[in-house]
């Protein structure tokens, strides 16, 4: 056992020799990480099963009532994870996901950065204006799709005002399909930017910790 400790000390020494600057700061608390990965997984299931309900791929030959069950259950899970995140935000008084005017003012500069007209992104809070816009749209659209989903699930027994508002079952389906396409178009952008912009942010979503300030080694 003694040897072990010695070994680790020496490793730590060697590590200190490397010029790693900054300290590890917790940026993603445990509930945020649980929400993120849980929601990502269940929403993926919701969307894939929804698309299967939309247009059954006959080569899969899936049992259709099971597809619907998967769709419904994963949606309840997604809602649950979202609930966790909302509760977490309320308890920690965390407003990092609420877009503010100050954030949106930076949006043109951010776009300029993404289109290679600027060399660095504008300053921002925890999330930049683009992220805030996408996350907020996801939040709203997820709730819209859920409401419409519940309306179709109850087949006009409950939520009658929703039916009257949208004008029928086909419109409900249609809106949900378009919402799914929106998710399918924006999720890859989200993944792409999170792996290519700042990899330590991705690490933070797994371990919870992020190195601040960024190592900035060139």
């Amino acid at each position: 056992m003694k040897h072990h400790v010695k070994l680790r000390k020496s490793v730590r020494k060697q590590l200190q020799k490397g010029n790693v600057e900054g300290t590890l700061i917790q940026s993603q608390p445990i509930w945020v990480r649980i929400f993120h990965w849980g929601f990502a997984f269940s929403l993926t299931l919701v969307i894939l099963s929804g698309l299967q309900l939309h247009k059954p791929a006959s080569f899969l030959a899936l049992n259709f009532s099971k597809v619907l069950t998967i769709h419904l259950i994963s949606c309840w899970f997604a809602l649950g994870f979202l609930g966790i995140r909302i509760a977490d935000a309320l308890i920690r008084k965390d407003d990092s996901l609420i877009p503010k005017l100050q954030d949106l003012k930076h949006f043109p500069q951010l776009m300029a950065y993404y289109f290679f007209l600027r060399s660095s992104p504008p300053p921002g809070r925890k999330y930049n204006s683009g992220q805030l816009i996408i996350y907020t749209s996801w939040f709203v659209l997820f709730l819209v799709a859920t409401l419409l989903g519940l309306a179709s699930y109850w087949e006009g027994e409950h939520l009658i005002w929703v039916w009257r508002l949208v004008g029928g079952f086909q419109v409900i389906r249609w809106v949900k399909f378009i919402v799914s396409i929106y998710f399918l178009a924006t999720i890859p952008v989200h993944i792409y930017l999170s792996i290519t912009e700042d990899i330590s942010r991705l690490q933070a979503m797994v371990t919870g910790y992020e190195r601040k300030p960024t190592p900035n080694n060139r």
Partner: protein
Amino acid sequence: MLSRRDFLKLAVKGAVLGNFYQLITPPLAEAVAAGEVKKLPVVMIETGTCTGDSISLDNIWTPTFSDILTNIVDWRYDWTMNQVQGDAAYRILQDTYEKLPSEYILIVQGSMIQRDDGHYNHVAYEDGRLITGIDLVRRIGLKAKYVVAIGSCATYGGPVAGYPNPTQATGVQNILPERRVINVSGCPAHPDWIMGTLLHLALYGEPELEKFGRPKLFYGETIHNRCPRRADYDQGIFATDIGQKECLFRVGCKGPVTYADCPIRRWNDRFNWPIGCNTPCIGCTEPGYPDLMSPFTVHLPDIPFPGGTKVNTDSIGLGVLGLTSVAITGHVVTSLAKGRLQKNLLRSSVKVQHRPAIKKVNTYHQYRLKKTKN
């Protein structure tokens, strides 16, 4: 007299056995003869319509439509059934309106043509003036005991209100907001749905209505929920072409989104119904039919673009996903070319100058005496 509960039972039993009127008319005729129920005065106004619902109504088999007309209802004004014409016929409508307010039932067949104050649809000639459909329906409707819209056009606008809706046609409810309109939709409405609703009105008053104003009695459940091919659907066994014996979901069946009792009632004296002859339900009883239901052979409606082109939803979906892929690929290539990708990754990851390496130096074995029993 027949109780309301018995009536509701008969409406379903009659659908299954196909003898709704046979079951329902004798007790009714007796009740009328005994003076328990008054013969119901009915007037029908046809506006923007093909008269298909009248033809459908003629399709009542046993007893025939004429039995019902003579024994049960007081059918007063109806273009296809009138025994007189011109002023004489119109006077009957006027008389009913003036002498029997809050007693007669108004049936409307056809959509409400709104463009240019309704002048593309004249339905009467009064004091040298042409009367529009909207005006007459509003006037007669405001004093009626019940207003019943029959067929897709009168209920929700139907084919007449289809894209691009040149006459700005709409359903009766929209031009009669003061009244609750009872919607008996369908293209055409099934004779049982029309007559069943009228009989319910005569005997027990307004039937329970569902979300879009249709009697729950007939429109309470989706086609899909009662379809004989539902087992196929649940197991994922789908027809790949119209004419095959499996569930028709993949060829655009609108059964899952359509409320009506066709699977048990069927059509043409119970002879058959669309899914029974291997063609998809086209959703004719729903608001938004036909635009929201067409093309009849695909799942979701096409999206109209300015200029009159229509694009399939699936192509739009694929198009959007294609654009995203192109955008991301383009961004990757540009980022690589400009060195941004490399820079970002280097900047945000940790570089250790002396990468610590560990190698196994020695292996220790520990030995211990075995515990032996005695």
